[in-house]
Structure formats: structure tokens, C-alpha cells
């Protein structure tokens, strides 16, 4: 377990580990819908055509049980939905690890973190870490790495 004295130390850890970040500082693009936010990653990094990327994202959102969020803009999403879309965005990004930074600052209810952790457990091929500034019982017995 790593202990970070400051938030800057935590960000340094993120930089060194080449992580896709899910945090308040990496929001969804407000002009784009949830689907467009996700397909942007595929269109830019994987160079997948617009049409094909849209089909892939549509299927992915359906598999994750978030199909109804497809056409919603970030301002139409609640906090949990925003974090979920951010997490999927991190999953489809080219980075091998995913770091969720200070999740409680992005969520309305403490229980919402259970949903986020359950969602992250669907990402078999990626290592998911939660980086927080304080310990919380929610991290116990979850499959993702917990770093204080």
C-alpha cells in the first residue's frame, strides 16, 4: 500500500504508472454526448471510422447496462452516470491501468462507489486502482487495488 502525503504526490504516481484517470480533473467534454465522448477515444487513438466507433460504443454501453445514457450530454447526467461514462472511457483508452482518483468527491452518495467498483470488475484486462486520501470500508474485499 502506498501512502501519499499530498495530492501532487498522488498525481506523480499516476504519471509514473501511465494510467487512464477517472477524476474531477478529467471531465467529459460538455459539447459531446456520452456516446461521442467514448467514441472520441476510438476515433483518435485506434483510428476507427466514425460509423464503426459509434456501433462499437453502442454495443459496449448496452453490455454495461448503460444504453439509455447514449445520447445524453454530460449536463443531463447525474454524478454516478458521469463517473460511469468516465470509467468506460478509461477502459477503452490505450492505457493499461485505470486510476480512479478521490471517487467520493465525484459522487453524491457513498453507496454509489459500490456500483462503480462492480462496474470496474467487468474490465477483465485492465488493472483498476482507487486512489484516495482516506481509508474507507468500501474498498475492503473489492477486486480493485486500493491505495491510500
Amino acid at each position, binding site marked *: 500500500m502506498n501512502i501519499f502525503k499530498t495530492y501532487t504526490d498522488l498525481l506523480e504516481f499516476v504519471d509514473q504508472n501511465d494510467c487512464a484517470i477517472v477524476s474531477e480533473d478529467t*471531465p467529459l467534454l*460538455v459539447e459531446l454526448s456520452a456516446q461521442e465522448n467514448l467514441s472520441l477515444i476510438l476515433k483518435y487513438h485506434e483510428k476507427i471510422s*466514425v460509423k464503426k*466507433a459509434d456501433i462499437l460504443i453502442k454495443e459496449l454501453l448496452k453490455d454495461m447496462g448503460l444504453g439509455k445514457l447514449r445520447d445524453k450530454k454530460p449536463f443531463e447526467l447525474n454524478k454516478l452516470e458521469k463517473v460511469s461514462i468516465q470509467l468506460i472511457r478509461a477502459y477503452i483508452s490505450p492505457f493499461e491501468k485505470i486510476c480512479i482518483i478521490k471517487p467520493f468527491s465525484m459522487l453524491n452518495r457513498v453507496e454509489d462507489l459500490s456500483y462503480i467498483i462492480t462496474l470496474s470488475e467487468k474490465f477483465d484486462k485492465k488493472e483498476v486502482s482507487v486512489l484516495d486520501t482516506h481509508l474507507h470500508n468500501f474498498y475492503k474485499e473489492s477486486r480493485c487495488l486500493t491505495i491510500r
Partner: protein
Amino acid sequence: MGFINFIKKIWSYYIFTIICFLYIFNPKNYTPASRETFVKQVFYTAIEILPIFILLTIVFGIFIVGVFISLAIEYGLKEYIGYIIVKIIIVELSPFIIALFISLRTGIRVGVKIALMKVNNELNFLQRYRIDIVRYLCMPMALANTISFVSLLFLFALIMLLSSYVYIFLSIDMGFDIFLTTLLNAVSLKDIIIFLTKSLIFGFIIITIPSYDGIHMEKRYFKLPKSLSKTMLSLFFIIFIVEVLSLAIEYI
């Protein structure tokens, strides 16, 4: 000190514009995401505005052409009408008017968009996810704006020429073949080169200057109005300088 900072800023705009321009020549920069940005920008700058643009151009064209041709006839300069239409209305006035028009519409929009992206941490997301803002946003928008600018300019020039012909026909009953000959005699290769170069520069800087300022503004909401007003002032100043330089090249 203020003057030195101003020169530094102009230099930064120049470097950023050159970087965006060089990105055009690398095929790797044309990702599907960049192409999508390009299409959206063409739609916004050139297509969405078309009905109101045509209407304004017709009204404005009749007015401007009317003033110039009336004055030419009044002062006995009938033989210089072709020269006045080509040199003054088409080569000098048209690009300048379109540049001001597109700056007010597209320049402000791009400035606000990039500045808000900066304040909302969206630029931070792009950086963290290794999405190059020049490749994804600035270069495709600048290229799209340049193409849209030239297209709108040709449309503007065409409407101006038609307005001129109608006005001349009604005033002095000049035939279309004589009108065309007068125009062709007045136009030179130098005019065409200046007209196109100036249009390409205007089309490009209308995006790169607001983009640069948006990227480099302070991350505070209350700075946005001041920053945008400074950006637009800089943009108008540079448009004015380009216009003056083109006049100097042509007439000095």
C-alpha cells in the same frame, strides 16, 4: 514593457499558426476524430449561415456597389468602373468584410469554446489521454475555416459582381460582354495572388488566434470576458495589419 509583451504575443500567435499550418501536411494528423471536427466546422462556418449570408450580401452588395458606381459616374470615371469593381470592391473590400463577419461569428465561438474547455478542465482531460489539441481541434478547425472562408468569399464576390452588373445596366445601359471585358482588363495576376493569399491568412488566423488565447488563458471563470475581449482586439488588429500589408504590397 507593454509593447514588448505585445510583440511577444504577436510572435506567439505567429509560431502557433505556423505549427497548426505544418500539421496540415502530415497525413497522420487526419484521424477520424479530426475529420469529424473538420466536417462540423465547415457546417458551422459555411453551411448553417448560408441563407442569412446570401441575404446580407445582396443587401450590402447593392448598397456598396451603388455608392461606388454612382460616385464613379458622377465624377466622370466611367472608364474606370471595371478597375473600381475589381481592385476596390473584390480584391480589397470583400476579404476584409468577410474576415470581420467570420471573426464575429466563428472567432468568438472558438475563443469561448477553447477557453471554457480550459476552465472546465476538458483540456486537462485531452492532455492526460494524450489527445493532441492541435491535431484534434485547432488544425481541423483552421483548415475547415479557411476552406469555408474562401468559399464564402467567392460567393460574396459573385453576388457583388452580379449586383454591379445590374446597377451598371440600369444606370448606363452597358451590355454584359462590355462589362465582362472591362472587368477582365482590370484584373491582373498580382490581384489574384494577393486576393487568395490574404483570404487564406484570414481564414486560418480567425481560428488560431482565439485558440491560442483560449489554451493559454488563466483557469478562472471571471477572467473569461476580459480574455475574450483581448482576443478579439488582437484578432481585429492582426486582420487590419494583414490588410494594410496587402495594400502596401499592391500599391507601394
